């Protein structure tokens, strides 16, 4: 199965792919283009439609996985998924909406097999996912309590996971190592990040 991962870096892609493979129960292949990258939330939102269409029409991708950081945006709630309850500031709501819009817009392409998608939002940053089970305080719930109740921020998560100023190969090796740990028991992530990771898990299980 050829799966494109739209993420911020090659490090993120390496870790996410390990998790995706674990959830799908089979190894996935990258599509025949170099990694698809975003430069933070603004570029994910601006480019997701284009990325979707490009993969849909021009590449033999079976699926697209999108992961963005929530940063300081509201944490997704299941209530947002009820009709008319989508929250504009919620990044998961925004990404799901863009995907839905493109799915409805794109004409059925000849010889095109089903194009599957899975979208997740890491709260507050992807490093949080890869600390799951190692730092019990890092959860979506803890972040949702607001700045006063938090014991971590985006920078501390990076330092906790990689150490200060780790280079790209060091970060990638660490990300993959932690992803393999989590792949052995994916429920650790599901429990701590039920909205942002739960979303990607539920969608991948329908593939």
């Amino acid at each position, binding site marked *: 199965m050829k799966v494109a991962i739209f993420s911020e*870096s090659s490090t993120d892609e390496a870790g996410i792919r390990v998790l995706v493979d674990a959830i799908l129960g089979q190894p996935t292949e990258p599509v025949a283009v*170099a990694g698809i*990258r975003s*430069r*933070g*939330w*603004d*570029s994910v939102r601006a480019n997701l439609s284009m990325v979707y269409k490009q993969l849909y029409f021009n590449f033999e991708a079976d699926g697209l996985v999108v992961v963005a*950081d929530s*940063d*300081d*945006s509201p944490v997704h709630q299941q209530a947002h998924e009820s009709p008319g309850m989508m929250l504009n500031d919620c990044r998961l709501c925004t990404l799901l909406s863009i995907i839905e819009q493109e799915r409805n817009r794109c004409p059925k392409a000849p010889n095109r097999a089903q194009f599957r998608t899975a979208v997740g939002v890491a709260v507050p940053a992807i490093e949080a996912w890869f600390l799951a089970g190692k730092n019990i305080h890092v959860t979506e719930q803890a972040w949702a309590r607001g700045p006063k109740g938090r014991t971590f921020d985006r*920078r501390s998560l*990076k330092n906790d996971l990689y*150490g*200060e*100023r*780790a*280079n*790209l*190969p060091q970060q990638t090796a660490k990300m993959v190592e932690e992803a393999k740990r989590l792949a052995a028991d994916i429920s650790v992530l599901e429990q701590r990040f039920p909205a942002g990771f739960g979303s990607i898990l539920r969608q991948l299980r329908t593939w």
Partner: protein
Amino acid sequence: MITSIEYHNFRVLRSAVLPLAQCTVIVGPNGSGKSTALLPLDVSRGGDLSYARLVSAGVQPPPDLVRVTIHWSESTPDLPTILHWERNPAQPTRTIPPDPTAQALRSRHAETLKTVRIFALSPGAIAASVQVEPSIELGRDGKNLAGVLELIQQREPERFDALVDEFCRWLPEYDRILLPTINTGQKRIRLRKSVGKYAIDAQDLSHGTLFALTLLTVAHLPNPPEIVCLEDVDHGLHPRLMRNVCDAMYRLAFPESSGESRKPVQVIATTHSPHLLDFFKDHPEEVVIAEKGETDATFRRLSDYPQISEILGGTSLGEAWFSGVLGGVPAGT
């Protein structure tokens, strides 16, 4: 380490202070004094600058004095190095303090300044053949690269292998750096393609490839200078390689993070790349924004902006800089 440089009537830097960290990246519009700010470091190691070349033509009446003050972290109390140029005589003078106890520190600073290297790379110089000598050094424009690589390979083969590995991670279309001796007895650089295993001579390589190889070589030098300045460090390189460029700078400045045991190098780089800037968001103390006024230019460290973390939020630093909200963008654009 230099903590700051103060400029007084120094070209466009009529009254400016450049704050410096162990690793500093300076961004700003063209003509905002980024390269000018590095000039005094060149003068300190023997570069030639006269009063007439230092004073902006538009400054009337011409100032009696041009002064640059270099502040050091090791100084307690602060014992800066002062360079000044007077209208007469038109020669730089280094102030020597009367206090003999300060002499050792002064001497050490003077020695450090002699090691400063400013790199403003040129593809032709990088690609040129070189006669290898034991004392060969990388030139300001990248000349002697083949000789420097040859010495690293001879003296520290494991370091050379690490350099090759990293280069091939940056540009995976290559799998080896070759240093053949040509018929004049000189060394040349050739890169072997991963697919097809044929070699491409340095003169046929892209500018970006040559710049990448030179930057990585600086980052892997066994005994690098104490202070390295990298002009337009992103020049010719793809935006996706900016993370690698940041890693190379950090390898010099924070060697322990790359498993190196040598002394840290102070790195000062200039850039126009928002993509490179993105990687410094977590270290606003390492970012300086140059601002161009009508007749002068100034510097401001990103960490000195009030509530900068709150302002930036989830926005990438490069996007924020490009937007203009942080300043440091060309007027009228």
